[in-house]
């Protein structure tokens, strides 16, 4: 379980996270939503130790984040995190060199599934292909948790469907997933928990199934209520 307790973060004088607390269990998909600048990406980066927090605590299965955990938890940024001149095949070699949990068979399977070419250079990929390759880097690691930052950002409808299909596949089964997105519609039925953010504060968090059963509202309905206020 990933657990955030009273996490606060400032960029200069700007308060980006103002006491954020939530838990994301393993085997469930937790979605962070909010308007631009709500602090979604900062939360993911803070969990990964890519930006320090001012106060509060972050625990992963009960322990504080440390460098070795990068084999158990994988962050899929909204940008490709490989040098532009590298070929996809070289990226695979790089990942295999550094991560013991890199699953080459799964990587090649996903390469075919996403119709990517191993000889292509990273900087030659379109936005949709880059998003798929990013997702591939996350899925090809046998990690317990996956953090995905805007996996649908700037992606066309077909690529979006392809990516959404992955979330209902056996590839994510048993993993704890935290994702940030504005494009809720495609994956709404897959979400287990939703955390709504506004200006670095949690405005609402709920289990989507409970919300459907008890109040008869979908995630999109709740989003409309919260953000159109």
């Amino acid at each position, binding site marked *: 379980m990933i657990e955030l307790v009273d996490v606060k973060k400032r960029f*200069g004088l700007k308060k980006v996270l103002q006491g954020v607390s939530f838990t994301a269990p393993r085997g469930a998909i937790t979605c962070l939503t909010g308007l631009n600048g709500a602090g979604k990406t900062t939360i993911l*980066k803070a969990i*990964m*130790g*890519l*930006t*320090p927090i001012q106060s509060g605590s972050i625990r992963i299965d009960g322990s504080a984040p440390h*460098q*070795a*955990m*990068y*084999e158990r938890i*994988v*962050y899929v*940024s909204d*940008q*490709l*995190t*490989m*040098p*532009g001149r590298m070929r996809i095949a070289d990226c695979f070699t*790089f990942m295999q*060199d*550094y*991560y*013991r949990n890199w699953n080459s068979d799964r990587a090649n399977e996903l390469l075919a599934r996403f119709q990517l070419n191993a000889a292509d250079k*990273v*900087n030659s990929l379109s936005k949709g292909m880059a998003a798929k390759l990013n997702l591939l880097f996350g899925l090809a690691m046998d990690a317990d948790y996956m953090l995905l930052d805007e996996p649908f950002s700037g992606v066309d409808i077909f690529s979006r469907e392809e990516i959404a299909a992955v979330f209902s596949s056996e590839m994510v089964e048993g993993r704890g997933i935290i994702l940030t997105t504005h494009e809720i519609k495609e994956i709404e039925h897959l979400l287990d928990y939703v955390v709504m953010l506004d200006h670095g504060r949690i405005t609402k968090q709920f289990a989507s199934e409970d919300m459907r059963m008890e109040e008869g509202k979908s995630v999109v309905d709740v989003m409309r209520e919260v953000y159109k206020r």
Partner: protein
Amino acid sequence: MTTYWKLLSFELRRLLLPFCILVVFTTVIQLYNAYSKAHKAVDYANKIMKKERLTTMEQYANAHGYFSYSDSFNQLNWIIFSIFICAAFVGFYFVMIWYRDTLGRHPFMTRLLMLPSSRNNLYWAKLTAPLLIMFSLLALQQILVPIGDSIYSSIVPSEARQDVPLEFLIGLNPVLNILLSNSYIDFLFYYGTGITAVIVLFTVILLERSYRLYGLLAGLAYAAAAILLIAIPLFLLQSDLRYSLTEIQLTIMYFVIIALISGVSAWFGQHLLAKKISI
């Protein structure tokens, strides 16, 4: 440790193309310099011999002096230009080695920071890769001087040529004299100071990457403090206190200060990389 070697090899592979270009550029420039200087010398001698009706090179040398490869070493020329280009590249790369992975469409630094091993490996790999390139270029210089000398000797006849030892050749050139110093103390002085400067520069960059503008200001203040500390022995050398300290004591003081600055800066830089950097 394995990760360090992998990262070092990765950084070196990224530097391979510019390194090869620099090797070819420096080699061509310096060997062509030796070739053209030799031909100019022979042409000049022939012209004078014709004018003065001299029949042998020996006669020319007796009347006008000997030619030497050292003539092309004791002045500002292509040799210094090629060294300057290499130095400028290495200097520029010491700054860019952090920024090239942080800026742009594909922030590779995110991936590097998420490697499942200590971030210290990344720090040391990024420090040692350009240093290795720098020492390789110096080794190239060491090789090019005797090759240039051989080219010169093969063109200028021995009767008109005065051969000089390589150490003397290097000593004549103000830049090569520093880069390929003969004395251990000088070598330690120049390279110790240079490596300390790079470690301090890394700290400034990592402060900037951690705290942006405030970090840059703090980094500049840190660098200024480091320069002031390094200047203490040099200041003492100029002051009246120089009579109460021997040269050896001042040298030891200097090396202790740069070791201290390097140690503190390296520790601080690694701390920033591990705990404070923000992507």
